[in-house]
């Protein structure tokens, strides 16, 4: 693979499956991994705050026995003083073995990778790519559904702006999904270029649209919920109307398959009722947990240690 992880496509299917395998093995056998990165330094460069993602990477590196340096938002960094990203990266190359970066500008991690000798992991660039979220989703699916293949997946909520959904769809398509069911308000439909992309490249995958999740929930294996943001609507009234029709609650879950799973990248706002949190099919909290394990696997891959050591 390329030395960096900038977008999900930087990884082949085989590489993704191996990461998932290592991510699972770490959970079974954490002792085997807890010193693999001792003496290594991860630079965590968050040019825009994202507490969840930062903690997830920090926890991953610490669980591998490594160290972290960095900053949590650009106000404390030299970027504030107008330094080019290229210069920041060149300097951080001396201080660290691997760099995780989040940046508000789209394409920033790619620019950084052009000036870096150490591996760069994109932890989100604006609304562009967020490959470790996709990997987290895949590990979660694999854990609960045993395989990534042949599922019927309902994607619910903001399918227009939610780029993590776009990247998840494209990646799942590579693993022979059976059917995608798109459930969203008219204002937030999946862009047609993604539907066209699926039709051209994966004509065997069925694509359906539904206005309400309850109309299709019986046939779904994976319910992937996303956050509907108020800012996407012109008026508050539309938003309030919609937010209730997209709420997943006990009533709707009654009709879902016994072995279905409910996922959400978190934080949730109003999409999932607290009353179903204890339903064993709701895996969204463990999904965050899986995020740490897949990031651990990724760090060992990029630092070529443990299962990835070259002998």
């Amino acid at each position, binding site marked *: 693979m390329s030395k960096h992880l900038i977008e999900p496509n930087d990884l082949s299917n085989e590489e993704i499956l191996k990461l998932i395998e290592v991510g699972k093995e770490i959970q079974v056998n954490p002792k085997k991994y807890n010193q693999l990165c001792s003496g290594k330094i991860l630079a965590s460069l968050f040019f825009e705050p994202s507490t969840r993602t930062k903690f997830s990477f920090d926890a991953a590196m610490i669980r591998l026995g490594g160290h972290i340096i960095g900053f949590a938002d650009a106000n404390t960094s030299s970027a504030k003083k107008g330094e080019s990203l*290229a210069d920041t990266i060149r300097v951080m190359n001396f201080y660290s073995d691997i760099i995780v970066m989040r940046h508000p*500008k*789209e394409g920033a991690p790619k620019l950084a990778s052009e000036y870096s000798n150490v591996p760069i992991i994109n932890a989100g660039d*604006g609304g562009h790519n967020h490959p470790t979220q996709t990997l987290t989703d895949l590990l979660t699916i694999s854990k609960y559904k045993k395989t990534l293949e042949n599922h019927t997946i309902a994607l619910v909520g903001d399918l227009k702006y939610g780029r993590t959904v776009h990247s998840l769809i494209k990646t799942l398509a590579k693993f022979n999904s059976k059917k995608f069911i798109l459930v969203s308000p008219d204002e937030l439909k999946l862009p047609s270029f993604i539907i066209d992309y699926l039709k051209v490249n994966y004509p065997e995958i069925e694509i359906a649209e539904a206005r309400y999740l309850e109309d299709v929930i019986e046939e779904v294996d994976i319910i992937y919920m996303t956050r509907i943001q108020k800012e996407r609507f012109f008026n508050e009234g539309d938003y309030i109307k919609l937010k209730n029709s997209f709420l997943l609650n006990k009533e709707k879950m009654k009709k879902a398959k016994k072995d279905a799973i409910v996922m959400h990248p978190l934080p949730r706002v109003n999409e999932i009722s607290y009353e179903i949190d204890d339903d064993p099919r709701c895996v969204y909290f463990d999904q965050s947990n899986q995020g740490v394990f897949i990031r651990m696997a990724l760090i060992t891959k990029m630092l070529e240690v443990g299962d990835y050591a070259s002998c």
Partner: protein
Amino acid sequence: MRLVNSIENGIVIDHITAGKGMIVFNELKLKDVCNTIVLLMGIPSKHLNKKDILKIEGDFKLDPKVLGLIDTNIIVNYIEDNKVIKKEHVSVPDKVSDIIKCDNPRCISHTDDYAKPIFTLMKQNGELEYQCSYCEEITKIKFK
């Protein structure tokens, strides 16, 4: 032909679709050069109904990619000692850098001087559409 050959050394940009001569003039930033420039507009033409011609006298470094973005009818004549030494048909470039800017306001190329995007041609029937190598958004080419 008299018009085409009437400079000794330089470049004649011929067969510009009528009305686009001024765009070529602006995009080549000819108001900032010290060469002698002649812009002829609305000349009767065999191939096109009417055409514009732009002549640049003397040494001038021409980037034919700029012309390809504006008008693929253009033929460039390179003149030395009153003779046409080379004719070049321009075409729509597959890749461009420098000469266009990314349309996406959130793109890193607008805020970091090191980011020099390469744009790849994605679509060329009707409007030209180029994809930015950093943010991957589409930039449409339009000239005023």
